[in-house]
């Protein structure tokens, strides 16, 4: 959408006009849905979350200040909502099925980045691998490369120190490479 039209649509949207909201939905739904998918992972519920975000949009837009570009703002709202959802899910999990304590990370010398990710041109395979990553790896990775947040911003959202964020991102990429190499091997067999 053009800059000028977007501004006009946003103005109308804030006034609560249905057509403007529909325009926004058409324009941004897929990006919002994509982020929901990455953050919520393979457990699903991404469609529901995306619809919920758009349902709440008229209300949320009252707090939108035009300092931030609208797409960035919308994606930030989306990630907040999804993180909330994840937190709630974790809580339920803890109540109903107590998880075994997380052991130390297995130290595996992973394959180097060049040969796996870059030469893996099948983007959907990469997407699938991302959505299968465990949540504590997936969420920092998505916030970093989808929302393009800094380590500090990610840390603030997840309640982690900056160093922990760096380590989590480093490990999640290693995990992703490993998963993709495995997938490639399976594919070749």
């Amino acid at each position, binding site marked *: 959408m053009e800059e000028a039209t977007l501004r006009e649509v946003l103005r109308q949207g804030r006034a609560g006009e249905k057509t403007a909201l529909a325009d926004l939905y058409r324009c941004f739904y*897929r*990006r919002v849905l994509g982020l929901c998918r990455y953050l919520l992972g393979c457990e699903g519920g991404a469609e529901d979350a995306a619809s919920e975000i758009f349902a709440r949009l008229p209300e949320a837009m009252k707090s939108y200040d035009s300092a931030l570009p609208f797409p960035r703002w919308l994606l930030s709202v989306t990630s907040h909502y999804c993180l909330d959802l994840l937190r709630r899910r974790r809580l339920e999990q803890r109540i109903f099925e107590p998880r075994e304590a997380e052991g130390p990370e297995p130290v595996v010398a992973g394959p180097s*980045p060049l040969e796996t990710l870059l030469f893996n041109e099948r983007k*959907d395979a990469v997407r699938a691998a991302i959505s299968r990553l465990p949540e504590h790896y997936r969420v920092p990775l998505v916030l970093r*490369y989808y929302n393009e947040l800094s380590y500090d911003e990610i840390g603030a959202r997840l309640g982690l120190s900056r160093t922990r964020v760096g380590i989590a991102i480093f490990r999640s990429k290693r995990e992703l490479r490993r998963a993709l190499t495995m997938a490639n091997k399976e594919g070749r067999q």
Partner: protein
Amino acid sequence: MSCYSELTYSLHADHELPPEETRQVEAHLAACAPCRALVEGLRAENLFLAEVMQTPEDEPAVAVTPVQNASSLIRIFAILIAVSAGLKIVTEWIATLVPGSLSWLDPFGPALRWTLGFGVLNYLIEEGAAMFVSVLTTLGVLVFALLIVRAGLSLAQRRPAAIVLLAILALVLGLTAASAAERRTGEVVSVPRDQTVNDSLLAGGDVVNIDGNVVGNLFAWARRVAVKGTVKGDVIAFAQTLDVDGTVEGNVYVFAQFANIRGHVARGVYSFGGHVQLDSASQVDGEVFAASSSTEVRGTIGKHLSAYSGHVELWTPARVGGDVEAHVAKAKNLFVEPGVVIAGKTETFLPTRRPSRYARPGFYLMQGVRLAAALLTGLVLYWLFPILFAARLDKASSVLLTMGLGFLVLVAPPIAALIAAVTLVGLPLALLGAGLWLACLYVAKIFVAALIGQGIRRSPLSQPKSFALDLLIGLAIVFVASNLPYLGGWIRFLVLLLGLGLAFIQARSHWQRGTTAM
């Protein structure tokens, strides 16, 4: 200085190291090529990750939309089929009402059938053929190109070498298609009196005049073909009018509305068309076969004359060296003028009313055998590809839609095969495709039978128990319905459409699921 850890490099690639550390790392990178390569790789990886995540996925829902748009087209097809079926039923009904004396008015009667058929055909030849062919060629090339591009894209994602192969294949196909499509055009194609064509001649145009000699065969496609010279080989003509005034040393095969033979044909004349006339000056040394609305003979025929015609007339000075076989609707439609010389017998074959096939026990035996064969085929298919039988039709509209799709499946492969067969490379593909298509035609009714059987036996309480029993019940119903008098043919046709549509939908959805699962 020793290398930093991979974690440090990861932070560095994300621009998240403190400034002091960044400087140290940069200094090391300047000196250490392997570490530099690693950081380059990490940066490229970051860019790639961002790109993968930020480009929206291809939604399957979006990919479905064109199909939904196409469904209106399919609906139109379905309506067309329904309308034509209705028309056919009405005309059949009218035909039963028309008294015998008015039968010449009946467009589907034997007398006018050829004339009408050739009238339509000639219209097509004159007005539509060029347009039709060019549209068809364009469409075919487009579809083919799209298929190749699509296949190439999906292959290239996995095997880059395949794209080279495909490119070569496309090039070869394109070249052969281009050379095969080369043809001579012109309003008038003529071979002048003093000219000799030392080979077979392929002539197409509005008028084809052969005044000179053709050493080989003559293939002519025109509104009017006139042979005044000599053709040493056969004449194969597709025309509104064919005039043979000269000499043909081979056979004459003619598909024409008017075929006039006034010259000499050293072998036989085989004519399919409206009116065949052998003039008093004509001499045919071989036999004459005519399937036409009228056959008129005044010349000399060396061997037999057999005619499947509305009217057969022999006038003096006609001479027939062999028998005369006339297959006519009524005995008086064969007219032989006194004075006509017939060396052999003269026989009139009237259409005999065959006893109803329902009265013969062999018919039921045959149907039983067919049913058993279909049942066996269905069970083997179910065993091999159970997914093909998973179709459900819930609404009447989806039945129509499926039938429309089935019609496309019925019509498109032969056209595609014909187009493919034009090229040398495509010929085996075309044959293979045609074989597969024929197999599908047979199998189609089995899908419908399975659907009917399961539909009948499915009740809210019971789970499907035996597929074989379902199929048997369904097949029995389909067989009985498609052998009903009058309606059977149409039921068979509709079942065929439905079955093809079902199979196509199932195969397609299975294939799609298969590719996304990979």
